[in-house]
């Protein structure tokens, strides 16, 4: 068999594919927002801009009408977002956003452009993000998100599993790793961590427990930790015999 040549000239420019057409939405987010707000009375939807080059802005949906808006997005004949591809959580700590705006001001009788910095404090919250696509119309993704009021232990959001079954395991995962409770989820249990586990490991302020096994010859900060871990316990007979650096399985 004759080997084919490794290098051949590049195909003609006319054959060049367009850039990946991922954001092929039928209508802009403004139109979707307007139609959804008209269809679901009382719904309040904000557009969250995305400053990066990916150009994937998202819709922030109020928790009270989330299920109704989700049903609208799924069933509307023009949108038909029947496929919830990805559902995930995000943990936002308290943050301040600095905005610099150029303002015209009259200084000493002369109009000047002055930069003004405003600080906006956003309290911490947990977020659930859903990436929706349409298998019928082959467009997407439309990104929707919901926010909890705060990062407290009992943070709640409405579940979208009744609308898209694919959120079933993913919402369980958000609950497991972020601690968001989903109202209306049919089977909200931990999924990756074990049932007895406390705390939610994907939170930004998560601190890992001090119960792992230490290395046999600990040093530096592990030694420090191990010293605390293996502190003498006089209440247990013989327990104080175990010291750092000694093999546990030593001969008698």
């Amino acid at each position: 068999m004759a080997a084919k040549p490794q290098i051949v000239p590049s195909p003609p420019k006319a054959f060049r594919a367009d850039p990946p057409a991922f954001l092929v939405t039928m209508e802009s987010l403004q139109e979707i927002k307007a139609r959804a707000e008209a269809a679901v009375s009382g719904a309040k939807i904000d557009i969250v801009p995305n400053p990066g080059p990916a150009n994937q802005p998202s819709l922030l949906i109020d928790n009270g009408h989330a299920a109704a808006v989700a049903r609208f997005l799924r069933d509307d004949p023009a949108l038909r977002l029947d496929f919830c591809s990805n559902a995930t959580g995000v943990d936002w700590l308290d943050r301040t956003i600095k905005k610099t705006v150029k303002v015209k001001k009259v200084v000493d009788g002369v109009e000047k452009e002055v930069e003004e910095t405003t600080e906006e404090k956003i309290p911490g919250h947990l977020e659930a993000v859903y990436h929706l696509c349409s298998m019928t119309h082959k467009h997407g993704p439309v990104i929707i998100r919901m926010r909890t009021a705060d990062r407290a232990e009992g943070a709640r959001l409405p579940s979208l599993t009744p609308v898209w079954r694919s959120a079933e395991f993913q919402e369980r995962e958000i609950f497991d790793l972020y601690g968001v409770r989903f109202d209306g989820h049919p089977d909200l249990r931990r999924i990756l961590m074990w049932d007895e586990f406390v705390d939610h490991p994907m939170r930004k302020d998560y601190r890992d427990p001090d119960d792992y096994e230490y290395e046999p010859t600990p040093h530096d900060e592990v030694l420090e930790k191990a010293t605390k871990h293996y502190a003498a316990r006089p209440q247990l007979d013989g327990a104080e015999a175990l010291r750092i650096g000694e093999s546990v399985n030593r001969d008698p």
Partner: protein
Amino acid sequence: MNRESKMSATIQTLEPPERPPTTMTSRLDGELMEVSMGPQHPSTHGVFRMNVALEGEIVRKLKPVFGYLHRNHEKIGENTSYLGSMPYTDRLDYFCSMTNNWAYALSVEKLAGIEVPERAEYLRVILAELTRLQNHASLLGFLLSDMGAWGTPLMYAFREREKILDLFESLSGSRMMCDYMRFGGCRCDTPPGWMERANKIVDVFPRFLDEFEKLIVENEIVIARTQEVGKLSAELAINAGITGPMLRACGVNYDIRKVDGYGFYPRFKFRVPLGEHGDTYDRLMMRALEMRESVGILQQAFEQIPAGPIVNPKVKIRAFRPPVGEAYGRIEGPKGELGFYLISDGGTNPYRYRVRPPSFINLTLLEDLCLGHTVADVMVILGSVDIVMGEVDR
């Protein structure tokens, strides 16, 4: 002689037993028995457990239990630089490290707005399709193994897989943990003669497919074990977010290579095979048919691949900081839609690093597929979903 006569004598002296006749009903009737299948079981493809409620041999309830391989990949990704996560994506679905690399690289390229040179895109397509070939071949081998054809078919598939892994090794230095893609291209160009070797392997691959399909298509046992087993309707599959060959077996035409047209897939002619019944047999056949299309794509790619740079020189390797924003990128992995969702706060580490694992979400419907079938069918259905626990548990 003596002993026999003695025994017959004792039997004759025994009095007929006095016990009430057994009834045809027992207190066990109608009761469900709970069985824990796994986590250590050859057919669970890793450490995966199912709590199954059985009525006799029929499955009445099934709850998958995950997390035996959970190491919180996403948290590790948040504490590592963008490039630092690249070798770690190899460990997600350790059968398909090349496609994992590509999905991650694609998402970061979306996040930072990076362009990829032409040769690198072609190399990515070639490697992704080679990955698809070896993944599907070994899946079919495993599935036949689950059905009781121990060893032989799996070794046939692994023989072909070895050839492709050898290619990966000579290209990237590692058979399975390739760590080959970089943001804006690939790590290194092909060694001399690599393209010819790959071309030869792909050219003879259809011969293996002919032989292997004969083992499956008209095999009486395969037909009896898979047709009408684990049927899935298209509506339910779409609603449950099933992707990949499992979705297309239900007749839904959704292939991200066609829908998004990422990479250079619009330049290649290939068909998307679709099933009719959505049962296990169709899922099996999807893999066989997709391998034929992959061979076609590869042959076109070998002809078209141009010379040129393989990585975008403008991309910073050290102190790589994408602009503030978020991006979701996805590709058609061998198992389904593999996506990465990244949020950048302008730092060197991603603020949020999320993997959308296809095999985890495809397991959503495992219970629906298995209800009413026997325990033996559960293993076949699970095998046809195509899971790798490194990706499911992350």
